[in-house]
């Protein structure tokens, strides 16, 4: 798969980081919205936090989002002319890389952002995508834009 150019605005990065820190030591997750343009550029313009459905014991290590809540967020964003770009979630006290579970449950065509978060705050954000069911997982570089 060709590497995409991902441009993420600063507010969205800030939103993701804040969500990850507030939720720490639990895992957080949310959706990223924006626009896909023809020339392989993906713009991320909005991050929407979602509730983690996992119970308090599981929420330290796992996240699951209710499909109906994804649907309602998705519909609302659509009305603002934004399309879903992907999913972000945090890794409390662990690195920004995909876990085995992340890889297994990955939805093709969605960009997955992983926020590594610790006691001291956010450490790193990295993004991946599996373009189609039988494609490999590719890491995307991203740039923050104003």
């Amino acid at each position, binding site marked *: 798969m060709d590497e995409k150019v991902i441009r993420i605005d600063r507010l969205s990065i800030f939103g993701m980081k804040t969500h990850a820190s507030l939720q720490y*030591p639990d*895992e957080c*997750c949310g*959706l990223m919205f924006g626009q896909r343009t023809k020339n392989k550029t993906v713009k991320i313009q909005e991050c929407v936090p*979602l509730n983690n459905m996992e119970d308090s014991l599981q929420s*330290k*290590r*796992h*996240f*699951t*989002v209710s*499909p*109906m809540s*994804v*649907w309602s967020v*998705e519909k609302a964003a*659509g009305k603002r002319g934004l*399309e*879903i770009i992907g*999913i972000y*979630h*945090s*890794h*409390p*006290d*662990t*690195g920004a*890389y995909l*876990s*085995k*579970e*992340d890889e*297994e*449950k*990955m*939805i*093709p*065509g*969605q960009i*997955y952002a992983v926020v590594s978060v*610790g*006691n*001291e*705050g956010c450490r790193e954000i990295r993004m991946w995508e599996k373009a*189609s*069911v*039988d494609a490999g997982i590719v890491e995307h570089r991203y740039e923050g834009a104003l």
Partner: protein
Amino acid sequence: MKIIISATLRSFFGRRDEIEIKGNTIKDILTGLTDEYPESAKGLYDEDGSLRPFIRIFVNGEDRTGKSSHEEGIPEDAEILLLPLIAGGAPEDERKSIISDERRKAVALDDKEIERYEKHLLLRDIGVKGQKRIKAARVVVIGAGALGSPVIQYLAAAGVGTIKVVDFDMVAISNLGSQVIHGTRDIKRPKAASAKDTIKNINRDTEVIAENIKVDAQTIISVIEGFDLVIDCTDNYKTRYLINDACVLLGIPLVFGAIYQYEGQVSVLAKDKGPCLRCLFPSPPPPGIVPTCAEGGTISPLGGIIGSIQANEALKLIIGIGETLSGKLLSVDTLGLRSNIVKVKRNCSCPVCGDKPAITEVVDFDYEDFCGLKEDDGELPVEGLASEELARRIERKEPLTIVDVREPYERAIRRFPDALVIPIGQLVRRQKELNPEIDTVFICKEGKRSILAINTLREAGYKGVMYNLKGGLDAMRDIIFSNEAGGL
């Protein structure tokens, strides 16, 4: 029937958001979708022909993904949604123990140990691996008093391989009320040696290093260097900040514990860039609120409660299980029997663990000054009075006002006869009770709070002659008065 497709799954269906399918069951719909969009089969099903874990079918807001209801009829006007199940997780294997796998693998448990640690081995999250980590661990306990007593005994019982006990004090009879690691026969023995005997009695296999030294800026590094974990069981802020700074600088995690009267606190500090003591308490409590030069009283089991929590945190860190108190401060109030946990973040401008630390060496720091125990440079020096001199003046019945600035509960222990009692916090308000024409001597337990008292009054404009009893009441202990007048 109209199927509405989430944007996350549209790539399987030529980016269509709605698809009309003939039929009236989920089975019909799924067949219809793959007939119309053959490419979508790969997206919807895995190699075994089961729906992929991220596919969810909702009918009128109800999850109908489960195969059992695929053949049930669906009302004509139902809202049918094809939605994603978004899920994932963090890597499991990083809930890291402070003891590396290599060190764990380097130790073995013999049959005797397997028998001894049975209760640990029965716990799934400890097991043989966890017990080996405990055996490989090297822990320093600073202070073999009320907190150190349970900490040291539980760590020894749990099988910690190497325990270093550091304490410069001797066992006194007044220690036996709460320091349960020592017994009556240990009175006047070094606490470190007495603790060592108790450990050996619990567990002969424990390697014990007993150090009968005072922890200060010169000794602290050599005391803790090369150890996996430090447990602060000391009783004063000066030492606590010193231990904290050394742990941050050497990158050794620290289990902090403190007790006072009926309350205690526990936290895990300097762990994986977590906050340190200075992030938690940027400055020690103001003098006069907590006696800084006297050991406050505590209810006997308090050290047992708080120390046991410290030992438990230590074991969690060693085994690599549970949620530790890193980034959190636990407070326990044993009178109301309440506890609470507050989250604490690392302070990026913290002088030790911040982004641009000002403290880079333990030696360079003036703890006396930091703890408010030293006169400021700008202040006039305080006139000291030796205990012998005070005794002489009392014997000669010279006109003298003696002001005891200790807290009420401290005075109950050892009263100073004929002293005017004004706790430090009330001094300014009650300065009219002092006669500026008469020399006034201020006393406290160790002669440090009394310096503060004098400076406070001076600042408030008091003009009389003031002396500080050097060494405090502790120094008066050995003075023998020739008549009953002193009556100490």
